[in-house]
């Protein structure tokens, strides 16, 4: 396995080098994205200037789902191979995922204000995003619910596995439910017909958020490894 030979020390040094590099890359892409977003792309004929929120809202939504799939894969890996690195990755991914879903919800409701007139609308995607946020919070709670970190990881992995199968069902049933409750609302939130001048800033912003995610993840992973080393040292004193 690729992780077998990389012991914690090598992995820690690896994260120490990569992390600032990823952060600077994400800041560069951010400037390019903002430049293309605000200077090069036209406002939408229907929604006017508020379409520019799409450049931050849609990448955040993509990332909230992508981070959950990372957690799901790591928890399967940790249940199957009982490798601590998988636990560490899934433990450090959860808060970042929660922040991305929170950002999606906030920008979604702000975007909804001019288009629908109210801050919160029980639109299908916004509700399933809210459920995803609740699921992230329960993952974080279970991660820190036990004093023994290894037990917390194991139970969080089990919860993530329950989530893998149930979240698509929840998403589908929420979509069916919201079409019944609001047949009228043409979901304006769906990004309008994108011509390439709008597509370019969207992808650049996705890259910038991706590198930001990588850098924060590596930072948290390093913190987790050091936290576990401290626990081992503290425990080895207890006879």
């Amino acid at each position, binding site marked *: 396995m690729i992780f077998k030979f990389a012991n914690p020390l090598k992995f820690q040094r690896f994260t120490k080098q990569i992390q600032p590099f990823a952060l600077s890359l994400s800041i560069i892409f951010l400037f390019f994205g903002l430049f293309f977003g605000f200077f090069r792309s036209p406002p939408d004929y229907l929604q006017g200037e508020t379409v520019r929120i799409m450049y931050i809202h849609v990448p955040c939504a993509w990332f909230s789902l992508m981070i959950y799939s990372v957690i799901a894969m790591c928890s399967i890996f940790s249940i199957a191979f009982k490798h601590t690195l998988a636990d560490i990755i899934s433990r450090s991914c959860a808060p970042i995922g929660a922040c991305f879903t929170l950002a999606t919800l906030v920008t979604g409701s702000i975007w909804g204000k001019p288009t629908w007139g109210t801050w919160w609308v029980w639109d299908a995607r916004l509700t399933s995003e809210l459920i995803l946020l609740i699921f992230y919070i*329960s993952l974080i709670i279970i991660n820190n619910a036990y004093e023994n970190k290894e037990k917390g990881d194991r139970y969080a992995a089990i919860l993530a596995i329950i989530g893998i199968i*149930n979240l698509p069902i*929840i998403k589908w049933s929420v979509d069916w439910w919201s079409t019944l409750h609001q047949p009228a609302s043409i979901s304006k939130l769906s990004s309008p017909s994108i011509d390439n001048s709008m597509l370019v800033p969207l992808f650049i912003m996705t890259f910038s958020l991706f590198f930001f995610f990588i850098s924060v993840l590596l930072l948290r992973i390093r913190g987790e490894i050091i936290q576990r080393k401290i626990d081992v040292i503290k425990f080895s004193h207890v006879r």
Partner: protein
Amino acid sequence: MKSDFYILMSREISIGIKNFFVLYTFASFFIISILIFVFAIGSDLIAKNNIYEPIIWVLLIFSVMLVSENFVSNDCNDGSLKELQFLGYNEELIILCKSITMWIMILLPMIALMPIVSIFFKIDYVDIFYLFINFLFATPSLVLLSLVSSLFSMQLKRNKIIQFIIILPFYIPIIIFTSSSKKFALENNLYNNNFLILIGIFFITLPLCLYTSRLIMKEINK
């Protein structure tokens, strides 16, 4: 040679019948919360735009969650869960028998409660029949999910409330498809195939809950 399933089922049922107290908590919690709803909303309002079905389903979910706790906890605390494991019964079978006995023990008070509820909410007899069919198909997955959540909380010393927070998102599909069947009967023909969706949900939650409770039971002993 008696099969494992028969042995476990006979054990669970004999123990289940002995602590009959569980059914009183279930039935009394159900009735009292219905009273609270009636006082809060007022019975004429409930009867007018017949929101009795969502009320019944929300209360059913919470009472099932409350009852599932003591099905698992006294088995786990006095070590008989561990005894079943080291006697060679695999964990899925243990949890399957527990959920079957819990489902049967929940079915009995519900049969008694249905007419009482229908009198409270002045429901006509056709809806009671559909309500009961809905109830038959949805409670198995409710029971399985609440058993998994009470297994989660076995290890928690400090805050037992976590089990409710964790498991609530997974009740959403069930509550959507059970409480909306009557109301949207006219608009679309989803009326009769809501049961099929509930059966589908049950067939997904059954293996999932058995597998995760197997993982949890392996963790409990560590």
